[in-house]
């Protein structure tokens, strides 16, 4: 009985201990870290910090480090023998990265409960014109990623970031490519698959296209998102509504 109580107390104290942890980081540090994270870490770790199997940065629990100082050092040294490379950052940058990684979970506690999903769907389909590129449950174009299950795989905060800053939060996976064949035909589309010699994409007419790179005159991966930033197009309330709608999309299965 005594042991059980101790265990319960330990659990409570660890929860309490984690909560205010983010409060010690300044908003400026967190924002700087967010920009750095999106520029340097997002490719492997993903917008939600959980793209690598077995590694979820948002849990705030790491296999190799416990303290901020250790996390700071790991970002600099990388993890030899793994895909985690060493990183060269200023002291201020490192403080920002640690602050952002430590706050990732708290970011997501901001949005839930806000916004009107029904109104969000109307904005998505009408004012936002999102279905001209995105598809949701068989409605809309396949030119941009299908969003039918986006609410199950992205946090509200990541959804909001994508709406505000599409290029900054675009995953490399979703980059467009522009190819020019030897006879001058221009093909633009979203990359589905690529290897050293060939690339497969879905073009702007929603056709599946497979190209052999040696047959191309030009081949460019476009790092700018074709999606317009909605920061100015929608009010903050409308953005909340769209995020609320996207959060309801959990996919067919």
């Amino acid at each position, binding site marked *: 009985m005594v042991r059980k109580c101790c265990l319960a107390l330990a659990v409570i104290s660890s929860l309490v201990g984690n909560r205010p942890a983010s409060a010690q980081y300044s908003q400026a540090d967190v924002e700087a870290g967010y920009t750095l994270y999106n520029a340097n870490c997002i490719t492997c770790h993903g917008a939600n910090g959980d793209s690598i199997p077995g590694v979820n940065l948002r849990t705030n629990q790491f296999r190799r480090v416990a303290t901020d100082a250790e996390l700071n050092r790991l970002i600099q040294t990388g993890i030899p023998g793994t895909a985690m490379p060493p990183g060269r950052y200023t002291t201020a940058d490192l403080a920002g990265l640690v602050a952002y990684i430590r706050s990732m979970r708290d970011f997501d506690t901001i949005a839930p409960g806000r916004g009107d999903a029904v109104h969000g769907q109307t904005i998505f389909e009408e004012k936002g014109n999102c279905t001209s590129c995105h598809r949701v449950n*068989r409605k809309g174009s*396949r030119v941009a990623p*299908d969003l*039918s299950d986006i609410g199950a795989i992205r946090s509200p905060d990541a959804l909001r970031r994508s709406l505000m800053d599409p290029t900054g939060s675009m995953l490399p996976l979703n980059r467009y490519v522009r190819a020019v064949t030897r006879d001058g035909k221009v093909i633009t589309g979203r990359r*589905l*698959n690529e*290897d050293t010699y*060939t690339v*497969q994409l*879905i073009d702007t*007419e*929603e*056709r*599946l296209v*497979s190209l*052999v790179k040696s047959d191309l005159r030009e081949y460019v991966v476009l790092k700018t998102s074709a999606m317009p930033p909605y920061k100015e197009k929608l009010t903050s309330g409308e953005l909340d509504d769209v995020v609320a709608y996207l959060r309801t999309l959990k*996919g*067919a*299965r």
Partner: protein
Amino acid sequence: MKPPMRSVLFAVFLVSLVIPILRAQVSNDRLLRSADEPRNWMMYSGTYASQRYSTLSQINPSNVKNLEQKWIFQAESLEKFETTPLVVDGIMYITQAPSDALALDAKTGRVFWIYRYYPSTDARPCCGSVNRGLAILGDTLFLATLDAHLIALDAKTGRPIWNTRVANASAGYAMTVAPLVVKDKVIVGVAGGEFGIRGFIAAYDVRTGREAWRFNTIPGPGEPGHETWQGQADAWEHGGGAIWTTGSYDPALNLTYWGTGNPGPDWNPGQREGDNLYSDSVVALDTDTSSGLFNSRQMIPTITIRPKSPFWSIPIGTAARASS
């Protein structure tokens, strides 16, 4: 008066835009006339007449010896390959055991997308966790899974559209068959004749996945043929008559023909005395209602050993005008 050249060119440009988009859709009409498109293979047996014969002549007896390897696709599976690829306008759709679907570039074998499906571990097929391929209509593919689900997939992206449980895998049901699309329905049958199932063929609405009709290959009490199940009282409930090859379709008669598998238990006929209809038979069903069991024939009466496979049904004669 001649129309201005620019307008003519613009009209030609518009038509050139529209045609490829229309062609990308596999309409019911294209399926009916699939023999007119020998460069495509739009259903499991090539055409509704199930002849599995290509009229392409580029490869023939005189030059077949010159064939050489063009590309290799390596499956993420050590199971047997039993899939019949569909080829539609340069895209090849295959399955990879047990129940994955893939779209490949037919020219290079490179992958556009993979839909990975993890069947329930309750699925226990008798003879290999195989899959025989897909069906297509419009831009939707249909996949029958090892744990007896029927799944509609977006042919452009491989994303699931609906997922319908056809039968209970933990009761011995499985599916390895390639579905057959007829009009607005997708038709499948269940395997599991070695595990005490009662076989059936069922049709689902292509848009919603809702079941439209079900035909039990073993007749129940009060149905014609039920008297052919003697011996144990519940022999018919576990009588087998499984389906694992795709049926054919005769549009003139609106009938779909399916070959059924062995009765069960296969090695012990004492429990199921009688003719055991409609096991080891060809059944002809009205595609709209499943009713009207016309001309169903048991091919191997009162069988005690199991044949290797059910029968391929090839409609021949005035209605189908098919020559085999």
